[in-house]
């Protein structure tokens, strides 16, 4: 009973919009593997929809569709894009060794400081830092749920630029995992991730790399470490 109320309250607040971003991300992660929670969310969205209907209709500006279309085409329309980025990675591999130890320490802190409500079992964590060694992003990967939660702890990108997240396997092609401009992002993982592989952030034009290749410098990179 109490558990029921807890889930209903969580789903209700999710729809209401009063959860903060980490809480909302946690709900989405959990909902991915919890049909009861998905049903509760659907129930609340339906229950409260008449309030949204009250807003009526307002035509958006004419140019908006073109912007949306160019954004979805730029970000890639077929899920993960595959490309080669080995040259950059080779150059950065030397730099990352230096703060690898610091990252491992941080990862322990991150792993033990997980957010409520019920955290999913993250399989990997990664701390992404730049040349100064300061962490800029913390990532936690849940391969069961197929999600990667990315939390920015460093500076936001310049206003006219976007951060883009890449999976960098030890061998073979590098895969875009989308733009990472928000303070906190929840991404789907469409590729297999293994310890020893890296996550990297490159600086791209606003909205992400327009070419399917990383066009800007790799500014942050970090190793995937087992979380448990």
């Amino acid at each position, binding site marked *: 009973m109490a558990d029921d*109320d807890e889930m*209903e*309250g969580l789903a*209700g*607040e999710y*729809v*209401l*919009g*009063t959860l*903060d*971003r980490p809480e*909302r991300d946690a709900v989405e992660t959990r909902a991915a593997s919890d049909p009861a929670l*998905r*049903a509760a*969310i*659907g*129930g*609340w*969205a*339906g*229950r*409260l*929809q*008449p*309030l*949204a*209907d*009250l*807003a*009526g*209709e*307002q*035509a*958006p*500006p004419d140019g*908006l*569709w073109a*912007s*949306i*279309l160019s*954004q*979805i085409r730029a*970000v890639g*329309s*077929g899920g993960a894009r595959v490309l080669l980025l080995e040259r950059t990675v080779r150059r950065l591999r030397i730099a990352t060794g230096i703060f690898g130890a610091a990252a491992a320490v941080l990862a322990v802190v991150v792993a033990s400081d997980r957010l409520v409500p019920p955290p999913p079992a993250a399989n990997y964590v990664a701390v992404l830092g730049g040349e100064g060694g300061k962490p800029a992003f913390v990532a936690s990967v849940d391969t069961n749920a197929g999600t990667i939660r990315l939390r920015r702890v460093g500076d936001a990108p310049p206003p006219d630029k976007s951060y883009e997240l890449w999976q960098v396997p030890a061998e073979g092609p590098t895969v875009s995992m989308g733009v990472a401009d*928000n*303070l906190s992002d929840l991404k789907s993982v469409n590729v297999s991730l293994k310890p020893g592989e890296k996550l990297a952030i490159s600086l791209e034009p606003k909205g992400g790399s327009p070419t399917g290749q990383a066009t800007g410098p790799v500014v942050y990179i970090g190793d995937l470490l087992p979380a448990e």
Partner: protein
Amino acid sequence: MVYQGSNGVMQAELVALMRDVASRDETAFKRLYDRASAKLFAVVRRIAVSEAAAEEALQEAWVRIWNHADRFDPAMASPITWMTTIARHAAIDAVRKGSERVSKTTVVIDEELAEKLPAPGSTADGLTGPQLRRCLEGLEPDRRGMVLLAYSYGYSREELSRRFDKPVATVKTILRRSLIALKECLGGR
């Protein structure tokens, strides 16, 4: 269980469009956009602090709809309901990124909002609206205000805490109790 629009045919068309969008059909996406954008823009506009912010949030919402269309499950929600949730979250993200909201003090009074819901007994808009109105009216005014400001204007717990002069933790408790009460009033549906 799930809110149904008054037009079942339109509903079925939207579900079919969602399926095509999930398979990356840009033509279907444009049709979905043409069908739903004015509604989503009105929803987003209420939450966003400015016209420009609303446009940005709407764009973000449509990108998310495109990216996550494969997660849409017609058994869980109607397409409009699913897209509304995404659009509201995109607008809320935009609002909470900045502190601009402080200046937005002249929000429509919560009481007025409830007035606009169809009256019980009026059948113009299906059954759900009047029932929700009746149940909202059954909440204490402060509780009703919190629910309405959160849903319609994207108020955070912190903003509600300031507006109603209650600790954030209390706001959370009140919101959850109000939601449970609403659900019970709506017959647990």
